[in-house]
């Protein structure tokens, strides 16, 4: 918080902060918000790099949804039928089989599902961020390390 306040103060540039007027206080608040949002963005980008490049575990998608459902193995559309699994949430739960054969539930963003064309059998990286387990398509490096092709069940 101190850093944000300091950056907020610095962002005022040549205008010395005069707390006497409301507009100046508002300017400080706006600057703090602005810089705080940039810091959150930087944090989110760093976390994204971490989940892509240095995931805690590597696994394969076994099925989409809160429950392990092997019927989903036939899905080959690239953009799965998410309606069964989305319960008013903007992330999709996915069942991932880790390298020790254990199954966990991870969350994936709808952008990753469609743009990254995630399918059952894909190699993915999972990372715990706070109380959520986030899933990302594994990078090429991981695929080379694992020595396996995608969708190789």
């Amino acid at each position, binding site marked *: 918080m101190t850093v944000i306040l300091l950056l907020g103060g610095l962002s005022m540039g040549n205008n010395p902060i005069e707390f006497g007027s409301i507009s100046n206080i*508002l300017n400080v*608040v*706006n600057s703090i*918000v*602005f810089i*705080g*949002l*940039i810091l*959150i*963005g930087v*944090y*989110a*980008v760093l*976390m*994204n790099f971490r989940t892509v490049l240095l995931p805690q575990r590597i696994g394969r998608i076994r099925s989409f949804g809160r429950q392990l459902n092997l019927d989903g193995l036939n*899905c080959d*559309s*690239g*953009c*799965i*039928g*998410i*309606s*069964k699994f*989305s*319960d*008013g*949430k*903007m*992330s*999709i739960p996915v069942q991932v089989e880790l390298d020790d054969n254990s199954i966990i539930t991870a*969350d994936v*963003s*709808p*952008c*990753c*599902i*469609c*743009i*990254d*064309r995630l399918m059952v059998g894909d190699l993915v990286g999972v990372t715990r*961020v*706070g*109380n*959520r387990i*986030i899933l990302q398509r594994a990078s*090429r490096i991981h695929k080379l390390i694992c020595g396996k092709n*995608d969708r190789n069940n």
Partner: protein
Amino acid sequence: MTEIINIIMLNPLGSMGLLFFFGVIIASLRGWIPQDVLPVQSALMLTTLLLAILAVLFGKPINIKDITSNIFLHPITALIGGFLVAGALEAAGAFRAAIDILERTSRTPLGLPGTVAILVNMPTIFAMPCGRILAAALIPAAILFGHILAQRRKSSILASVVVFGFIVNAAASCGPSPLGGIGMVGEGMAGSLKIPGIGLGSFSNAQSIAIMLITGVTMLSISFVYRILPDESLVKAEGEAEEKVEKMEKIHISAYLSLFVFFITIAAVFILQPPIPIQTILVILVIVIMVMGDVTIQDLIGGVILHPIMAMISGFIIAGALLSIGSFDVLISLLEFLAETPLGYVGVAVLMANIPTILPMPCGRIIGMALMPGIFLLGITMANSGTFSQEVIPILLVSFIINAAASCGPSPLGGIGGIGEGNLGTEIGVSGKPQQVGIMIGTGIAALIIGVLGPI
């Protein structure tokens, strides 16, 4: 032909930049650049690097300040703020509350058709910073209502009509969003020219009305022209599953309150236009929802979807590089040449405004941000030609923005349309054409609204 060669020879570096940019876009769309190897955003970053090297070879090195000065932080921070609001609303259960309200509405005199009309327009009413937020959150409701409507009217195509109407509405909803929507960049550009009436939210209403028309036209063309029939067994099974789930879940009062506070705040921003940056209002809104809905900081971070942010930044960066090496000057010269053909300035403007849907990217922010300076310059050129007034600039910008925003719906590179296709069990890419028809008509309507009524 000689004139085109002259334009290219006058600025070979700028011409090469333009060629590489459109080359990468077309190669990605045609599948010549495999997206699982090199996504279009990364390809554009590599193009920027290549252009920087070429600029050095041509003796005109790109100043890094030229690129960074083109990364506008306000829309990016507003977008991050918007995602935090979305994360807070999701965690507070506001989207589930919205589904519940829709279900209750269907039992009022509005009935099922009235409820479906509200449902398909829900993404534009919420106006989230990325259409995929509501596409993911409310698609169960779209499937459920589509299934019920198809069952009652004994016409299975109605399920497709409802789902794809909802999908195209969601795709376009990031245009008028006050939470860091694409429109904000255009409003800022046009506002810099001190055109009367142009400011934050001045493009929103025209875009929202156009989106309703896009939705309607897409639904009509699916029903009467393209006849996209769903896999009935799939829709029935999903509809029944959703019915059971919805009946079991209980929604807390704080979810409804969060939804109410969100709508009141967004309405107040548009009506009162407070002299406070939207980012500050969004952060206050997030704090209020956090307190009401017992939402944690981690829930908020979980709401930040990076794809649109990265798409926006990659668009800004390639635009900065193209500006720096004079590619937009080449583009404007080429367009001026085209304007002397029977196409005229109006034809050129129509072509440019529809470029995002002709070359649909997985996120409209990519081509939106990359080409917006070119569209802005074209608007200025048209205004200076003596034939058009200064109002042509916002007209051109708003039509380009709505087209860009909606273009992620029909994109074959993982567009939102894929969500509908996956759920309905239809052929992949089948919803592209009806969406494109709707978007092109909506683009014209948005231009007409701004042209006739001004920024409303």
